[in-house]
């Protein structure tokens, strides 16, 4: 029996560990995307008392609402995008939204992006916010956070490229994660049809839940009681996606709108379909800018008109600036 045969278990383990470690080390510095992504979500989770206006919702809000644009429209208010992928309005998430607001803000504002999926039990169970909560509550994963990122899987066709530290010919990534919570998607087109074909799946045995809607309304009323202004809207999607949502999700926009406005929210009528999506429901950065401009304008108009100039004058630099517009 040769030395190699005698020690083959140790040799195999050593080679495997060496390969994995070498890949992790080689990969780490050349792949800032992974680190950015991890820090992006954990950074959002850590926001406390940092904003005048906080955006809540799922990935449609996360990609479609640009805090910098809203800030312009809202008179230099500090805006943060607190949306999470596959986001659902769970009790924990609703409880976390107002913690992002600065208690001393002159005009604290919450903007709720309400998609049908975000009001379903499926979204409550499984979403990026819950995942991040789980990570935050797992000392093991928190401790290993950065190291674990280096062990993220790679696409087969990018293995050699990543290991050599070179970039692919095409764009190596199609999104950027901004410090203010916006996910900028660097594409405008896409195979919209394919996404539409499979969109029904989201609502198989998973419909808008009346209890979840009522809970959102309960929080809205609580926020309003504390002087926080609340606006809500339904993010625009492609017409086929909207048709699926209207038929399959049991999302009754009129009823939900009435429940939330009764609770004190202001409903923003965003144009339903003229936005070009890359997958039927998400906006690339150019369209996100356009949507943010419209939402910002609607928010400014709504709060000025509905609340009147006296309140505005007392309230905020946000609305004061809007008046100046």
């Amino acid at each position, binding site marked *: 029996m040769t030395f190699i045969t005698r020690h083959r*278990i140790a040799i*195999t*383990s050593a*080679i495997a560990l060496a390969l994995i470690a070498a890949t992790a080390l080689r990969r780490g510095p050349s792949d800032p995307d992974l680190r950015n992504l991890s820090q992006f979500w954990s950074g959002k989770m850590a926001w406390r008392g940092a904003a005048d206006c906080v955006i809540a919702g799922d990935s449609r809000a996360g990609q479609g609402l640009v805090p910098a644009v809203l800030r312009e429209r809202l008179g230099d208010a500090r805006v943060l995008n607190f949306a999470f992928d596959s986001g659902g309005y769970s009790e924990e998430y609703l409880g976390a939204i107002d913690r992002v607001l600065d208690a001393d803000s002159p005009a604290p504002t919450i903007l709720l992006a309400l998609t049908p999926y975000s009001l379903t039990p499926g979204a409550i169970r499984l979403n990026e916010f819950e995942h991040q909560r789980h990570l935050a509550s797992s000392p093991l994963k928190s401790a290993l956070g950065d190291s674990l990122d280096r062990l993220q899987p790679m696409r*087969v066709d990018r293995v050699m490229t990543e290991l050599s530290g070179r970039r692919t010919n095409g764009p190596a990534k199609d999104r950027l994660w901004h410090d203010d919570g916006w996910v900028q998607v660097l594409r405008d087109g896409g195979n919209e049809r*394919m996404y539409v074909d499979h969109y029904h799946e989201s609502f198989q045995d998973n419909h808008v839940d009346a209890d979840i809607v009522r809970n959102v309304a309960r929080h809205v009323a609580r926020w309003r009681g504390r002087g926080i202004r609340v606006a809500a809207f339904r993010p625009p999607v492609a017409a086929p996606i909207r048709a699926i949502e209207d038929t399959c999700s049991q999302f009754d926009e009129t009823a939900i709108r009435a429940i939330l406005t009764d609770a004190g929210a202001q409903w923003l009528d965003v144009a339903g379909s003229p936005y070009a999506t890359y997958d039927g429901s998400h906006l690339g950065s150019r369209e996100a800018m356009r949507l943010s401009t419209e939402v910002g304008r609607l928010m400014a108009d709504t709060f000025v008109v509905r609340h009147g100039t006296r309140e505005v004058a007392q309230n905020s630099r946000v609305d004061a600036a809007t008046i100046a517009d």
Partner: protein
Amino acid sequence: MLFNSLEFIVFIAAFAAVWPLLRRHNAGRWACLVVFSLFFYGWWDWRYVFLLVATGLIDYAGALGMDIWPRRRKALLIGSLACNLGTLIGFKYLGFLIDNTNALVGATGLDFRLASINPVLPIGISFYTFQSLNYTIDVYRGIIRPTRNLLHFFAYLSIFPHLVAGPIVRASHLLPQLAQYTHPTESQRWDGLRLIIYGYFKKMVIADALAPTVAVAFGAAGVVASGAYWWLIAAMFAMQIYGDFSGYSDIARGLAKWMGYDFPVNFNQPYLATSFSDFWRRWHISLSTWFRDYVYLPLGGSRVGAARAHVNLWVTMLVSGFWHGAAWTFVAWGALHAACLSIERMTDWPRRLSRIPGGRILSTALVLIFVLSGWVLFRAQTFGQAGAILACMFNPAVWNPQVIRDSIHWRELIPLVLIGLHHLFHLLRLNEIEWRLPRLRPALHPILQPVALATLAWACVYLRGPGNVFIYFQF
């Protein structure tokens, strides 16, 4: 706890630290196994540990009672069966039974409706229930003597490598192994390491990478009208479920080898079967033999005349289908295999076909075609969906191969190609050849296997797919 989770790495490291200290003494070894196994199981939901312990206690006491009061053996066996099957029915089938009863009563026009319930299915309940049943039945039959030590029994019932997804290890096989400690040899540990790495590779690189494409195909609202697409999806699901389940079995067997125990082989290249009976001798062997020994043979097997033998075969396969899930599609899957086995038994076609040149390959292909069709029933959400997919698969008019190009990226096919090549390798018996690199010095040849295994381990980390949970957990 999942084998492919960070928690499991910590868990197994802790076990590896404690095990050498306790393994030499029976009580310490059994206690170590029981405590770690219950922790492993309870990680998912600690409340269900009580269910596992309660059903285990009933079987332990029942088997002991059979030894003490031989005249009451039958009553004690019936009691044990009732408890085990009652628990299984309660958690797994009650909702299904109520829904079907309501549908049946509704069809008669009566205004009566039972309240629907949908209890959470305890992970692995079908596996540990069968493992426990096997113990009491074998004690009743006098095949084994009951163990008087509670820890010994629970070490057998709950030993973590195979607790939630098999293989189902017979009491006659495992209890004697657990009764004494045998230090694993280097060869056993090497085999164990190979099995563990192969298992993880099958699960994480093959099955998990195939999972999203299969999920998208079967989750779509409509059925894509393309026979080529659905044959490809059926093949992908076949390899996904094989990689997932045989991967779990391999990891379980590998871990057992490191502990000094031997679990039986559970899969043996099932898609290379040359007949349906051959398929069931290769697929989920521990379950097939369980059904053979505890359902088929007690019904009379094939010793009771040809007609009764077919009935027994059908009963066994339908029960096997139902074991996999509380849905009629699973029963239909069992029925399809029963029909294929019955026809095979009546015509003996695989043996006849094997006489002509290329006949064995042809029979392998025929079996594979029906097995893939069966997986459509197994995976489909409804009969309607399964029917529509099968109609596409067997209708040349809607072959439409361009759908594949439009909807499946070439990257998604890599795992299928890999496992296809693996099967071809075995089909052509290339695995029986001792491979040597001509330019490598003979002294360095032993390094090839460690390098290959280490590369597979690397692939498990960096080329793993996005899937996670093992499919067979739900059974």
